[in-house]
């Protein structure tokens, strides 16, 4: 317990203090970290649904896009303040997830692909409902993050703090649920669903809760992104990138741990941006695919547990 507190404090100091201090002045680096954190946010939400909800999703881009559009449109057409709109974006994504709930009864692969179909449907709806979304032309000049207490959150460093806080809040929620009785019941449901329902666990309702939460987090992240880059169009908002990268990140880092998706996202995104893209300007995603495949074969639980085991072995060897 103590070790965990120390790690958390170190984490906070590192990311709220050291990182901005070191990289804050280099725009390119900080904006890449912001993008990596955006992926991390979705990865945490994805891992939460996958690990606790027991459902792998190939359509998280749906929630990302819905959150983005709801928030952007509320600020542009109804004059809402940005942060309130972002929360509404999350809520919008949660409401959208209700439409997918009947699919919770389906077995793993069917749910994964059902949700992919939803993502496709939302993208097409966003393109066709031109009256509201301006269709394929997209939305321009979306209001940026506001200035609070003299600190302009619309700058790269300001956005960094915002997305960092969102992601850490999501991780805190994931951690909290995991340690609660709801978390226990959800984990037990994976292998022994009848035995858990006999004990009174409302399995479908709990899974639905995880879906709503996962959608909410992803929606807020999508909303953040819309206000950060100030532009949105259906192909961007519902792009497969918002599904693929978080999955690679979560699997790579280890989606059964809380920090795994976060570390995985930073590692994968930054490697992709700074290393893979320069090696293979087109087709650099091939390395991501290979990394995903390799990780699943060698260490399905991801990198963080692998490292943990490695450290454990070292500790044993030393004694």
């Amino acid at each position, binding site marked *: 317990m103590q070790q965990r507190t120390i790690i958390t404090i170190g984490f906070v100091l590192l990311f709220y203090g050291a990182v901005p201090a070191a990289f804050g002045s280099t725009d390119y680096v900080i904006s890449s970290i912001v993008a990596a954190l955006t992926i991390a946010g979705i990865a945490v939400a994805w891992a939460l649904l996958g690990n606790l909800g027991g459902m792998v999703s190939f359509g998280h881009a749906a929630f990302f896009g819905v959150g983005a559009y709801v928030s952007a449109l509320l600020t542009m057409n109804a004059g809402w303040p940005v942060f309130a709109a972002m929360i509404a974006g999350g809520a919008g994504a949660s409401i959208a997830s209700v439409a997918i709930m009947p699919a919770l009864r389906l077995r793993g692969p069917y749910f994964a692909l059902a949700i992919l179909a939803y993502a496709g449907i939302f993208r097409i709806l966003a393109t066709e409902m031109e009256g509201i979304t301006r269709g394929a032309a997209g939305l321009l000049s979306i209001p940026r993050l506001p200035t609070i207490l003299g600190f302009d959150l619309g700058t790269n460093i300001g956005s960094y703090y915002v997305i960092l806080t969102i992601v850490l809040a999501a991780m805190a929620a994931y951690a909290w649920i995991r340690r609660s009785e709801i978390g226990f019941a959800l*984990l037990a449901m994976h292998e022994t669903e009848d035995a858990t329902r006999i004990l009174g666990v409302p399995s479908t309702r709990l899974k639905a809760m995880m879906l709503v939460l996962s959608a909410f987090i992803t929606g807020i992240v999508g909303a953040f992104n819309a206000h950060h880059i100030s532009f949105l169009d259906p192909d961007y908002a519902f792009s497969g990138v918002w599904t693929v990268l978080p999955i690679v990140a979560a699997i790579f880092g280890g989606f059964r741990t809380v920090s795994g998706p976060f570390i995985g996202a930073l590692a994968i995104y930054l490697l992709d941006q700074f290393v893979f893209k320069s090696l293979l300007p087109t087709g650099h995603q091939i390395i991501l695919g290979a990394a995903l495949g390799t990780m699943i074969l060698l260490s399905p639980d991801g990198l963080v547990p692998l490292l943990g085991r490695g450290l454990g072995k070292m500790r044993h060897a030393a004694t």
Partner: protein
Amino acid sequence: MLRLEDITVGFGGLTALANVTLEVGARELVGLVGPNGAGKTTLFNVISGLARPKAGTASFNSVNLLRKPVQARARIGIARTFQIPQPLHELTVRQNLIVAQTFGAGRRNARRIDEILDFIGLRHKAEENAAAGLALSEHKALEVGKALATEPKLILLDEVLAGLETAGKRQFMQTLKRLHQEAGLAIIIIEHDIETILALCQRAVVLDFGKVIADQTPKEIFRNPAVMRSYTGETPGA
């Protein structure tokens, strides 16, 4: 307390239960016996919600049981153990009980969890992984523990003694006796062992081919020719 009328369960061409009528009062300890395949586990499945009857009614304390889904039955007071123990994976023994208590009883009481752990004799294994770290008798004990944690009014014990050696069996039987007397519960127990039924139950119900063929005291059951026929295929003295 529990009233089943004309329960019929069938899958495809097979009838697992036919017109089963049964009443169990609060605080009764009833044995459920019969040859293999007679429908005993199916009956438990109907009461606990894992099987739906094609026909018949069931009520529990005047509540229409058949309208309640599986997960609601623990809440109204029906608990059930599985013949092959099903510990909740990836959780410790204590966490197993916590889940049962939180969702089955609807409240959290750490002291009660400790009491149950002591009662089933698993206090020393409370932090062990439930799926991996237990012996068979301990698995059986955990099954009972989970059922108890839901604070039931009726417990269905499905061959909870099967596979235990004599000493373990005797100890378990003592535990069950205490359970019945101290906790004031109704218990229906499926058992193959005649001695267990004679020792524990004041009443036994016999199923054969999905039908109730006897419902009497254990002594009477074992002098009942229909029962003898169902077990041995012959009429005694013929």
